[in-house]
């Protein structure tokens, strides 16, 4: 169950979107706020197109609850955890793939992986560099 609530509608250009995914152990945090309108729009669109709304109403702001499958949930978690700015180019690329979840995932994947790269290499870099220096 994904619960999305627009908790702050006072600033038209700054949507504070709150996502509550308490029902899933896979998600490390139970409550996350995104201060990004583009990211928020993508998440709402994903839920709208691929989820089933179960409940909506008004409680400290408008909210609706929807049931989504694992793939959509995984994509939402990735979008929430992504540290890089949602550029206009990336937003447009993702927006074009909203109906095709596999395409959406493929577009998002390089950006998610890029955040996992470390300038110190992976766990085997120390040994690889020793071997390479012997050449």
């Amino acid at each position, binding site marked *: 169950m994904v619960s999305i609530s627009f908790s702050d509608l006072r600033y038209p250009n700054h949507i504070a979107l709150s996502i509550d995914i308490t029902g899933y152990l896979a998600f490390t945090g139970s409550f996350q706020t995104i201060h990004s309108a583009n990211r928020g729009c993508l998440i709402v669109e994903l839920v709208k197109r691929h989820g089933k709304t179960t409940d909506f109403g008004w409680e400290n702001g408008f909210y609706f609850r929807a049931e989504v499958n694992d793939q959509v949930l995984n994509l939402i978690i990735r979008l929430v955890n992504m540290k890089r700015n949602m550029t206009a180019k990336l937003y447009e690329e993702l927006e074009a793939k909203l109906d095709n979840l596999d395409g959406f995932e493929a577009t998002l*994947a390089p950006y998610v992986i890029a955040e996992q790269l470390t300038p110190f290499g992976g766990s*085997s*870099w120390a040994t690889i560099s020793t071997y390479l220096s012997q050449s």
Partner: protein
Amino acid sequence: MSSYKRPSRKHQDFPGIQRYALQRTWNLIDTSGSIGEAELAQELSEVYVQAGDRPVSVVLWDAESYGVIEAKNRNEVLNRVLTGVKGGGGTVIAPALRTTLGRMQYRDNVVVLSDFDIYDLEEPETRQLLSAVAAKSGVAVLVSSHREVDIQGWRFIKTSPD
């Protein structure tokens, strides 16, 4: 690097050509379906860190080889390699080895990053290609995230899960 290819003008016993160059490293990255996102990030991290001090060539492969991507620095790894990641199919290493063998120069380093659940690893042709690449390379390294393999001419590293 020095070579006796052209005779020295100083003395015939001296090596003729001397040049200083960073050796290129060929990274053969397994992008098959058995490689998860965390493993792929680990493989690309090894390439990313290498690109900081030497030119790297990347061959992405699963059941086929997806050509050679060259990167001179870390930014190019992000812009060229990461956005060009393809795969998700089976795991056949021979086409990638063939591509590498055809393009690499003598004494280039070769690193194969995979889980080594490779369909054609025991095939005679693949073994022959592995031997040929190892013989042509300066250092040949196999980096496995899952299975341990022992292939003559190759050094083996087993990655530890993060």
